[in-house]
């Protein structure tokens, strides 16, 4: 069930250049069903910016009723968010959407988690949950440059981790797709920029692949029809899925990326 709650900020820190990790206390943590769900945040009690900001949940702790988000300070909304500190209250709507299906891969099997830039965070909770149930987790994380890299060590704790940077300043130079072509897996989960998702979907049509999509949103709950995408089996027709309430995670081949 979706709740609107004033959540107390527990901590906020910059963990890489312009990348912030924000932990809040929220009763609705107990409503979270799967890694990859997101929340919709009102960054200021003001009319500018007017709309909420969708941000993915990177990990949660039901025992302490807390969850963590990792976001990039980029536009007006995230710049305001980055200024907030512990003890302040934040108006959050959540949990929203459908996350990654962890049951698609079993103990002893291999899951490949592929993240690009700010698409990396929702994979962290997924990695934790898969590792905890005995799945062999392999991570491929792509970033622009060394100063943007985060959570390499955290992912390493759960399993093999490859990092790429576009400029080669850290890890392997290139794109995540250069690395995953040499890896074998039973199930692939990915979140990141659209060209990356497309490349993965096209490259592994014979595999079990789950993609988390991003789209500009209005309401975040499925009412405004801002974030729709077409069903893959009906590319010229009227059938659709809403990224916010039907997704953001879809099985590859379900919608047109």
């Amino acid at each position, binding site marked *: 069930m979706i709740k609107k709650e004033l959540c107390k900020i527990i901590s906020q820190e910059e963990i890489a250049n312009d990348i912030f990790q924000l932990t809040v206390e929220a009763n609705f943590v107990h409503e979270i069903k799967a890694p990859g769900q997101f929340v919709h945040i009102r960054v200021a009690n003001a*009319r500018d910016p*007017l709309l909420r900001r969708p941000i993915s949940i990177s990990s949660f702790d039901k025992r302490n009723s807390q969850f963590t988000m990792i976001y990039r300070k980029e536009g007006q909304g995230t710049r305001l968010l980055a200024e907030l500190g512990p003890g302040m209250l934040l108006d959050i709507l959540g949990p929203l959407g459908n996350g990654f299906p962890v049951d698609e891969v079993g103990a002893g099997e291999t899951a490949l988690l592929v993240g690009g830039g700010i698409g990396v965070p929702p994979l962290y909770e997924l990695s934790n949950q898969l590792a905890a149930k005995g799945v062999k987790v392999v991570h491929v994380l792509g970033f622009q440059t060394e100063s943007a890299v985060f959570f390499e060590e955290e992912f390493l704790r759960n399993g093999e981790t490859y990092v790429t940077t576009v400029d080669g300043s850290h890890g392997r130079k290139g794109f995540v797709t250069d690395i995953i072509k040499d890896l074998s897996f039973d199930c692939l989960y990915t979140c990141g920029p659209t060209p990356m998702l497309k490349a993965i979907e096209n490259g592994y049509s014979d595999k079990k692949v789950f993609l988390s999509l991003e789209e500009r*949103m*209005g309401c975040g*709950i499925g009412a*405004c*029809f*801002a*974030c729709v995408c077409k069903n893959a089996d009906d590319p010229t027709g*009227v059938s659709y899925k809403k990224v916010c309430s039907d997704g953001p995670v879809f099985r590859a081949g379900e919608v047109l990326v």
Partner: protein
Amino acid sequence: MSRLNIALPGLNLKNPIMPASGCFGFGREYSQFYDLSQLGAIMIKATTVEPRFGNPTPRVAETSAGMLNAIGLQNPGLEKVISNELPWLSQYDVPIIANVAGSVEEDYIEVARSISKVSNVHALELNISCPNVKTGGIAFGTIPEVAKQLTRKVKEVSDVPVYVKLSPNVTNIVEMAKAVEAGGADGLTMINTLVGMRLDLKTGKPILANRTGGLSGPAIKPVALRMIYEVSQAVNIPIIGMGGIESAEDVIEFFYAGASAVAVGTANFVDPFVCPTIIDELPLLLDQLGYEHISECRGRSWQNHEQLAHHRA
């Protein structure tokens, strides 16, 4: 005794607050937050004869105190709205205002004829003002004579009162209002969104895939108030006012301007509870302002002293 009930053609509203068309889908999403029977009415998403996918994405862009949208009237089509959405809504004790859209006259007539026969549809909102569809729409919403003829034809086939939704994207909105009144409109709803644009700083291109979109939210409130102020003095049919409403104070301001009820649009996206919150807060605000009933606020901006004295008596 209710201090908020309002009677309008076809509509016995327990309060004058309703979500605006296009900002509330068919109510399902908001029903997880509160009992929809609390609402005065619901203006459901525009319905066209055939299902529509709408425009490519991005479909929304933000701007100071507002947002632009170019959804493009996405809806499941007349048949599905009648077979799925309206029966689902009938579990709630709330009158439905069905927004009727189309590209040509025959579309509007077909939707109006069928949808007005559904028992929980108490009124139609004739959408002649959507800025985001390529064909039709514009002429119906900007040429008085065309709007009048369409209103007349829809009135002929509708089983329930017809409210016409006016576009602010005209030179003379009073002229449009008078034309649709002459065409037999039972009421007006106003204003629809203002056409606007945002550009991407990196690419230099429009953010919206449709290039232009409809501006809504608090940014357009003064425009809506001014237009309602002008139109309410020029016509004898009631106005359901909309345009940036997000609080009980805004509602009173719209009544002062001349509205008889109001619709809340964009604010639903910011706060899903905004409609019941406003309904809860209105009686207290009426107390503070010294009114027994919200109808006493209507038209205060242009009423003369004698009329006002009569109201307060």
